[in-house]
């Protein structure tokens, strides 16, 4: 019975996500929710992806990174150059544009991951605060590079304009869900558990035969990969990117989202990013005082809820399981639907082990 309850709790997430998406889209179509709200929601999705990517480093592996915006910029620029200059997407027919966008997102993510490995290998000789500082340094160097690249390739200091607006709420939401599940399964895999061991005690992990350097590099690569996806979405949503957008201030924003939500928990990162993206928009009526109150609230969260808004807990559907990796697939949803009609919950063989 307990098993069935747990399974039911986990499987309920997917239809809730689908329902949420449908409701928001419907409300938008009916004109009840305006485009401004949709824009905020899309940005929230992108920032959730970024917070998740930072969570892989800071929360799961215990490496502090202050340069997450650098990886995001690599994803944004490489995907934007891919669609705008290489494929000339605006001249393609509609269905091909979508394919091109997904391909570009993949290109951006892979480029960011490569960048993550290239930065990770030298940087991982350092520990603690020094690692944080060197990632900050790399992030700003990447930004400086985008600034000096000739204008006809990446826009130079003026920024890259005319990127086709291919991202919409569907894509942002889809990639957000995918990143959540990626993080969940990552944490549950042998990689993730090695990372957790390194976070808790690196020397002990090393003694147990975990190749710390390898797993840290993998963590860097996966984190950068997700950040690249967010970058691609960002570029194709705002259709204009500028080197200064991806500054250290942006990285520290993501850090704040993660720690305000609750570091180490996927749900915490998600809620933190969602809350702190929506909060400044809700405070718009305060005009000039908006960000003052935002800063004060942020301080209150940090001071009075040191474990974050979500207190390090995890939604049931994101909980770490002991036992084998179970990738979410459609059968779980269909089983749930079948269960609804039969009035009973079906338990998959060995799922709750």
């Amino acid at each position, binding site marked *: 019975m307990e098993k069935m309850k747990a399974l039911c709790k986990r499987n309920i997430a997917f239809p809730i996500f689908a329902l949420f998406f449908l409701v928001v889209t419907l409300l938008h179509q009916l004109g009840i929710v305006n485009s401004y709200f949709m824009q905020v929601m899309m940005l929230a999705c992108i920032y959730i992806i970024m917070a998740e990517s930072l969570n892989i480093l800071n929360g799961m592996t215990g490496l502090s990174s202050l340069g997450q915006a650098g990886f995001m910029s690599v994803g944004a620029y490489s995907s934007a150059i891919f669609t705008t200059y290489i494929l000339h997407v605006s001249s393609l027919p509609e269905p091909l544009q979508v394919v091109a966008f997904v391909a570009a997102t993949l290109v951006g993510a892979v480029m960011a991951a490569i960048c993550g490995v290239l930065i990770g290998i030298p*940087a991982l000789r350092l520990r603690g*605060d020094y690692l944080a500082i*060197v990632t900050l340094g*790399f992030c700003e160097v990447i930004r400086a*590079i985008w*600034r*000096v690249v000739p204008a006809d390739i990446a826009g130079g200091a003026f920024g890259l304009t005319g990127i086709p607006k291919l991202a919409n709420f569907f894509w942002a939401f889809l990639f957000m869900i995918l990143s959540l599940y990626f993080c969940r399964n990552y944490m549950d895999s042998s990689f993730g558990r090695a990372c957790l061991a390194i976070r808790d005690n690196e020397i002990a992990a090393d003694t147990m035969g975990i190749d710390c350097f390898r797993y840290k590099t993998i963590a860097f690569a996966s984190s950068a990969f997700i950040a690249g996806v967010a970058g691609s979405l960002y570029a194709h949503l705002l259709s204009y990117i500028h080197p200064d957008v991806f500054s250290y*201030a942006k990285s520290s924003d993501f850090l704040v989202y993660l720690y305000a939500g609750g570091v180490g928990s996927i749900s915490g990162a998600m809620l933190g990013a969602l809350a702190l993206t929506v909060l400044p928009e809700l405070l718009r009526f305060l005009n000039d005082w908006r960000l*003052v109150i935002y800063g004060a609230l942020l301080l209150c969260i*940090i001071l009075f809820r040191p474990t974050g808004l979500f207190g390090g807990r995890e939604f049931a559907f994101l909980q770490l399981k002991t036992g084998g990796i179970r990738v979410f697939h459609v059968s779980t949803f269909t089983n749930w639907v079948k269960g609804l009609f039969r009035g009973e919950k079906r338990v998959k063989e060995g799922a709750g082990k």
Partner: protein
Amino acid sequence: MDNFLQLLIYGLQLGSIYALLAIGYTMVFGIIRMINMAHCDFLMMGCYMVYFLVSVLFGGEMIGPAVALLVVMAGSSVIGMVGVGIERVAYRPLRNRPTIMCMISAIGVSIFTQNLFRALPFIGPNPRSFPKLIEDFTINVGAVKISFTRIVTVTLSIFIMLLLWFVIQNTKIGMHMRAVSNDKDAAALMGVNINRVISITFFIGAFLAAVSGSFYASSYPVMQPTMAVTLGNKAFIAAVCGGIGDIRGAVLGGFVIGVAEILVTSVWSEFAYGFCFLVLVVILLFKPEGLLGKPMTEKV
């Protein structure tokens, strides 16, 4: 050659500002191992403090060097007290938590102060010009022009740094600071009042940042609430390059970064900002403890 010497003078002036600011970063890091992201805001606050003191007390008239020095010191002391207050409210409750929480808190403080200054009706987001404190004139040495403000900035900075060095090496409170930075728990057991030492460290850091703000604004007289962010980043780089936790390192790093930045700007201005970070990355990768730092040993 003359051109080079002229650039060197500019570099020394900028370097002394970075050095003063970097001392604050390095002292706070040395004592509570925290990267104080809000440190640069003390520079901005110091500028505004002196600006308001001068406009209220003297109506924006030019004042002599002695009075100017007094006003700058008084204004900076107030900012020093603000620094102590911020530590008390925002960092002390988090002292037993991982140091990254302190850093997040500092980011929150930074967002709060910058936007508070932007929102306050008598400050506002628009740039203001810093009052001219002393009459400026130029001295020609060969083909090199040196303005009086630059000489004052560099000499005063060096004087302050020497004074600080003396305080840290030869006074009781300096000894306490060194003890706390070496081992906080052992120092506490020996009867050092940790809270007082940390407060004094924050006072000195904020004070020096405010002084460097006045120096900076005397040469580049545009003030706005976000003016200090870039300066703060570079001073932080300077502190890390010199060896974070070491005051001599911060001074050396400040001058190195200041001179290097001016020289690179004269060649390729677009890359100057990135260049500082490139220096940072290279130094961290090959000598992570910085130019003057001692290698850290990790205890099991």
